[in-house]
């Protein structure tokens, strides 16, 4: 079995890489290509670029092409504005190896099947931002409207039919805060699918990641803001998780 992955997330808003806090507050970081190049040099197991303000404007193909031109040795995943089969084709043509689907899962689940046919199920990841209510109920958060509800039947069917290859579970409330990932969110999604899961949101330190990696269905964790606070952050996290079934730290490339 392949070992689990430590992925680096780059959140993009208005063309800038930003720190995101619960998708409500942002701090500027810099040029997305500089962050992506850095994660590649650090030996991340994958890089996920999330353009959070694309809405109905389609994927940011110019950005994907700019990142593709860096000649990365790390797989590049892109999310943002993907809602049609043509979007999926164009994003892969521009340089993305995998695609993260979010709003389209709710608004047009039929399109997901067409996208899977166009670029392959293996290239698709379903993003599910989740929150836990005060009563303990785990709900799906619609970013665009802010609505919280049970996971829609259409999404359940879609992941049950394995029209995507992995599910990215996002701790929407804890995203960016570095206070750890709520495991109840994973439990709720595990009950819906046997697809491999990825966890994102609130993860900053090795001790927060360790308990998640022991879950058999978890294929990887994704870290965002915290990777920007010190040099060699990927290496530091992996050094603290050598007892876990995580892919070994790739020696960083030199100059």
């Amino acid at each position, binding site marked *: 079995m392949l070992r689990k992955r430590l992925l680096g997330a780059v959140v993009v*808003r208005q063309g800038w890489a*930003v720190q995101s806090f619960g998708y409500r507050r942002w*701090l*500027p970081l*810099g040029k997305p290509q500089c962050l992506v190049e850095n994660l590649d*040099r650090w030996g991340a197991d994958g890089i996920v670029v999330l353009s959070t303000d694309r809405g109905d404007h389609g994927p940011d193909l110019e950005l994907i092409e700019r990142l593709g031109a860096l000649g990365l040795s790390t797989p590049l995943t892109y999310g943002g504005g993907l809602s049609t089969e043509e979007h999926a084709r164009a994003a892969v043509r521009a340089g993305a190896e995998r695609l993260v689907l979010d709003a389209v899962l709710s608004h047009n689940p039929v399109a997901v099947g067409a996208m899977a046919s166009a670029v392959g199920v293996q290239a698709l990841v379903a993003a599910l931002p989740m929150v836990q209510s005060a009563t303990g109920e785990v709900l799906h958060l619609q970013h665009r409207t802010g609505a919280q509800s049970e996971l829609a039947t259409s999404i359940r069917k879609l992941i049950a039919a394995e029209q995507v290859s992995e599910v990215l579970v996002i701790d929407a409330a804890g995203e960016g805060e570095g206070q750890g990932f709520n495991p109840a969110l994973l439990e709720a999604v595990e009950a819906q699918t046997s697809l491999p899961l990825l966890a994102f949101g609130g993860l900053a330190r090795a001790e927060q990641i360790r308990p998640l990696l022991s879950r058999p269905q978890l294929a990887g964790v994704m870290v965002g803001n915290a990777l920007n606070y*010190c040099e*060699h952050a990927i290496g530091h996290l992996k050094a603290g998780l050598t007892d876990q079934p995580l892919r070994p730290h790739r020696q960083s490339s030199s100059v």
Partner: protein
Amino acid sequence: MSTAPVQFCKRCLYTTNHPLGLVLDAEGICSGCRVHEEKDRLDWTERWQQLEQLVKPYRSRDSRNYDCIVPVSGAGDSFFIVHLVKERLGLKPLLVTYNRYYNTPLGIRNLAQLRRRFDCDILIQSVNPLSVKKIIRTTLRELGSFHWPVLAGQSVLPVQTAVSHQVPLIIWGAHQGVEQVGMFSHLHKVEMTRRYRKDHDLMGYEADDLLSVFDSLTEADIWQYRYPDEAALEQVGVRGIYLGNFVRWDPWAQHQQMVKQAGFASARMNRTFDIFDHVDDWHYMDMHDWIKNQKHGYGRVVDQACREIRHGRISREDAAAQAKFYQALLPKHQTLLLEWLGLEESGFNFLIRQFVCHASEIKVAPNTIEAALPRHLFASEPGITLDTNTADRPVTIGKGYPDWFIPSIT
């Protein structure tokens, strides 16, 4: 980078066009102003204790070795940083300084005073000026910047020294991204990264990115600006921390303290009300600042005015008047720079015109604004200006100018 319309912060003078990136919140207040608010909320005594714990493992047991590397210059925050490192943390620093070649006599004097006053060893790097000039020709053409070698040199020399001397801890002053645009909260305790250096300090161009088959610049010219190998950094465990995460950073107050306490000397400069920043450099607040204004639509005085607004020492309206006045002033030392570079004025201006941002056009004549300028910021105005006739030429770092060389300091 962004195609979104430019927005203005309601509290300071920055816009969303800031080259470091700037985010406005729902109330129209920028990320820089919001992060600045932390300065009045955080427990700085507790944070200082955190710093003391952080540096503890780096104290050398060998008295022949250094505890840390501290980058310094003949201006800016250097005096206050060394004061904190040497006198409050009790560390033994190795000071490092990159010779930028635009040294003012006052800067040389300050550097010598810094070394003597705090009794520190100092390592000075002077890169072959022929290579520096070749690089500048390339960066003027590609980036509209003659300051790239300074930015690259002063940001890489401490890291190279940390590796070569096996002294892993580098201590910087404040993080520019935190202070100006609130890139990080103080709580994030952000540390030095190669990514930030390339992204922001070097405008996206590391040394090797300057090499091109269409240029005469070669590896022999740029190698001194290369970041150390990743494996070497990991092996030594190089780590650069910022004092601004642990001390309530207030440059104006700190500079005044260092004038009184440590003999730091300041001067009036051409394009700013600030009498402390960059007094060691003929061009930073002159040609460099004028070019920044042309490229980004604002000068360094806006950075300083925003800082003073946030510290509550000036109103937004007064700050805007100051900025408008100083940004309209023309540089005084263009000939000095062009003679050193061996460039014709027409050629230089042609290169800069390729980078002009139209937002920089100022339509009000300077003398119509001057009368309305608030003067209280000049209360501690020193008696000298940088174009004092003592030596209006770049000078090379050596033994340092004695105080009698600059009459107003004695």
